[in-house]
């Protein structure tokens, strides 16, 4: 348990690792918009190339990148199946009398959908989870959303909660393990029996875990009060985020990429989405 680091942060030194986390959030949003801008073969080709570029620039081993795609495998297969079989078009590929009708348009649609999903996941995991620690992500979100404070949305409090949650995940997971071991030492059995029996077997773990979590919360609150915590007002910060020139360049590049896609979409080549 001790070796596990939470989140998928992969320590390396790349342009993305060095970027301001706020810039990375903006980039991720821009990239998502870009994937939806793509309409035809050329723009999707450009998108694919850009995604490959991102992977190379991030210096994250391909093996680890692919791992992030595994959970969406089902969605990919499912959407492509729907696209293949549910799209009607002008060029039927299967014989007339077959019950299943596959059209050329369906295949194109499926391919585009898969590319869109894969690029979406790859880019967000590169910009956000792989190259940014959860903490700086929380920090960046607080900064980006700070205008919302004016309409009385407690942005600081949410960010604080997130930081504390991240801080306590390892502590509580260690604690869970300890409690499980303690109950196993008293003969508790979590692995066999009916569903009901197994659910019931969780009580000896959950009760002490909740008791301890509440105790911790109470003690932490006291400790925070002792350290003069009184909400976000009038707080300063040790590590203030600073945009650098490279952050702006990256954002401009991505905006330019979006505009480029828009132009590519106007070229009529092979196939375009309806």
């Amino acid at each position, binding site marked *: 348990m001790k070796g596990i680091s939470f989140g998928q942060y992969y320590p390396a030194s790349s342009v993305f690792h060095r970027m301001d986390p706020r810039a990375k959030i903006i980039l991720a949003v821009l990239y998502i918009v870009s994937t939806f801008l793509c309409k035809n073969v050329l723009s999707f080709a450009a998108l694919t190339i850009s995604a490959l570029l991102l992977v190379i620039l991030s210096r994250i081993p391909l093996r680890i990148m692919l791992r992030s795609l595994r959970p969406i495998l089902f969605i990919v297969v499912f959407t492509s199946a729907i696209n293949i079989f549910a799209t009607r078009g002008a060029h039927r590929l299967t014989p007339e009398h077959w019950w299943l009708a596959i059209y050329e348009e369906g295949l194109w649609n499926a391919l585009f959908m898969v590319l869109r999903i894969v690029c979406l996941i790859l880019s967000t995991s590169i910009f956000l989870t792989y190259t940014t620690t959860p*903490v700086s992500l929380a920090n960046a979100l607080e900064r980006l959303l700070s205008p919302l404070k004016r309409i009385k949305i407690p942005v600081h409090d949410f960010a604080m909660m997130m930081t504390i949650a991240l*801080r306590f995940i*390892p502590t509580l997971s260690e604690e869970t393990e300890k409690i499980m071991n303690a109950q196993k030492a008293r003969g508790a059995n979590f692995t066999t029996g009916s569903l009901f029996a197994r659910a019931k077997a969780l009580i000896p773990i959950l009760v002490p875990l909740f008791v301890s979590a509440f*105790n911790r919360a109470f003690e*932490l609150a006291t400790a925070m009060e002792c*350290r003069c*915590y009184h909400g976000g007002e009038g707080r300063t*910060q040790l590590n203030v985020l600073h945009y650098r020139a490279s952050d702006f360049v990256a954002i401009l590049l991505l905006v330019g990429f979006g505009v480029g896609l828009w132009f590519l979409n106007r070229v009529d080549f092979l196939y375009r989405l309806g």
Partner: protein
Amino acid sequence: MTQPFIHTENLCFSYKDSEGAGEHPALKGISVDINAGEYVAVLGHNGSGKSTFAKLLNLILEPSSGVLCINGMNLTEGEIDDEQLMELRRNVGMVFQNPDNQLVATVVEEDVAFGPENLGVPQEELRRRVDDALDVVGMREYAKHEPHRLSGGQKQRVAIAGMIAMMPKCIIFDESTAMLDPGGRREVLDTIRMLNREHGITVLNITHYMNEAAEADRVLVINDGLLLTQGTPNEVFSDRALLLSAGLEVPQCSEVVLELREGGIAIEGEDIASLQGCADMIARAYATR
């Protein structure tokens, strides 16, 4: 004479039970004065009220009755506004028992910065304070580490650094060594003594380890919510029966001297709390027997 840093008169506190009807008195009237720059140990068994006493001193709990003055501020007279409370807590820091439950941030230096950040210390000074505080406790090289990967003693030193960064006049240690192994306990105790001796910080160490109390200038013994006795470690440890009645004991070396005296061997001297003192006394008695 200057006024004491902490002054209490007949300080009482009662816990309300869950129905809010009955009251359980935890402190039944404590009157002490603690001067600026003193190193005071507060001894007592579990449930004696010693932790309650500590929690009253920076108003985590509010006294039910009695007088409490800290740093010239009377805290039991009239309403305390938020600013006064902040001022009090900035001056009187507190380090708790469980190292895991007082670290807020996921990076050591950000945790140390938490207090001064709350005070609104400007960024440049903040950086200096954090670095200085980490230097004082010898944890500078761990500035970028994650707290949950540190040892217990290291975590407590980070917690202490978090207090130092607020530049308090006094730090209260509420059984801060109870969950540590001997190595970690040594680390923390050395840090405590250094803060007192070199930085002039008033220290209150709430503990039930006799050897820790022996390092203090003065020992208060609390039993059943009352101040049982107080004095220098030498004075307090010479009354073994009284300490036993409070569920405590005396350090082993003091026990040896007291046992020998009871057995009719004349061992002259007062210095009963420290090991070197006891050894000197016994050796002298042996040479002149």
